[in-house]
């Protein structure tokens, strides 16, 4: 993976397969604490404690088409490479929360990359799932919430290219604004 936003896209696919109705993705950057924290939280089917323990093992997967599952181990490695940490909380029937913490200024911390493209890809391919993307930079934050967009759209599908274009610009412009406001 060349950028963290691709890891996020990959991890969120697990939530899609867990039949989540709502997937909440957060990126929190804090220059003072030198941290970057990524959270993917879903209300999907969740995992048993045994599965949670084994999911960071690259040779564990619930799939039957192949023998490896690299998504979670790759994100864990990306976080730990920077001296950061990684955790998964999950309960059957309640959902799963994946948290990866990075040392923001560490030389091995991959760039965040194009989060707008990640969120738009997820919305486009999963029109029945709601997504909330929260970006925090220091003290300020904004959220892109498909439940709110749906309300405005009155039946026009989120997967329409023009709508996706709007959502992409919404994320890009608001992210840039937060970053320039605080230098």
């Amino acid at each position, binding site marked *: 993976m060349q950028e963290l936003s691709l890891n996020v896209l*990959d991890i969120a696919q697990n939530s899609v397969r867990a039949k989540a109705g709502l997937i909440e993705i957060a990126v929190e950057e804090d220059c003072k604490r030198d941290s970057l924290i990524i959270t993917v939280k879903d209300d999907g089917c969740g995992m048993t404690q045994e599965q949670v323990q084994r999911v960071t093992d690259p040779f564990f997967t619930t799939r039957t088409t*192949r023998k490896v599952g690299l998504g979670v181990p790759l994100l864990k490695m990306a976080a730990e490479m920077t001296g950061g940490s990684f955790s998964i909380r999950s309960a059957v029937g309640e959902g799963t929360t994946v948290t990866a913490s990075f040392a923001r200024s560490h030389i091995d911390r991959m760039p965040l990359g194009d989060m707008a493209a990640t969120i738009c*890809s997820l919305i486009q391919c999963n029109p029945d799932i709601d997504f909330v993307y929260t970006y925090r930079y220091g003290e300020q934050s904004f959220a892109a919430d498909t439940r*709110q967009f749906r309300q405005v*759209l009155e039946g026009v599908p989120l997967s*329409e290219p*023009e709508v*996706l274009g709007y959502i992409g610009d919404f994320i890009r*412009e608001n992210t840039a604004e937060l970053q320039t406001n605080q230098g």
Partner: protein
Amino acid sequence: MKSLAELQALRDKMKNNMGIRSDDTGNIRVVVGMATCGIAAGARPVLQAFTEEVAKRNLQNITITQTGCIGICQYEPVVEVMEPGKEKVTYVKMTPEKAVKVVLEHLVNGNVVAEYTIGAAAK
């Protein structure tokens, strides 16, 4: 800051155009592999290129969607084109540039781009 009022304006514009859209018969499905292997190999820009090109040409009856790992990770990014009444076409090692050509040649003109297919790559 982008406002929700902009989205409202977009909605009103689109509601007027929704009526002319025909039903799902003859719908072509473009399926992009978006598992770990596909994403790592560059599936996201390929998906984006298909979406943008289809939108730019205002092509109707084309659905772009995703699938998981289909077990040929060495050929990712993999894109399958499924057309009713026709055999499935599997394109391999796709790039945004190849995606644009597939939209033009295959989706618009109906000619499979043989050189990008798995049959050509496996030789």
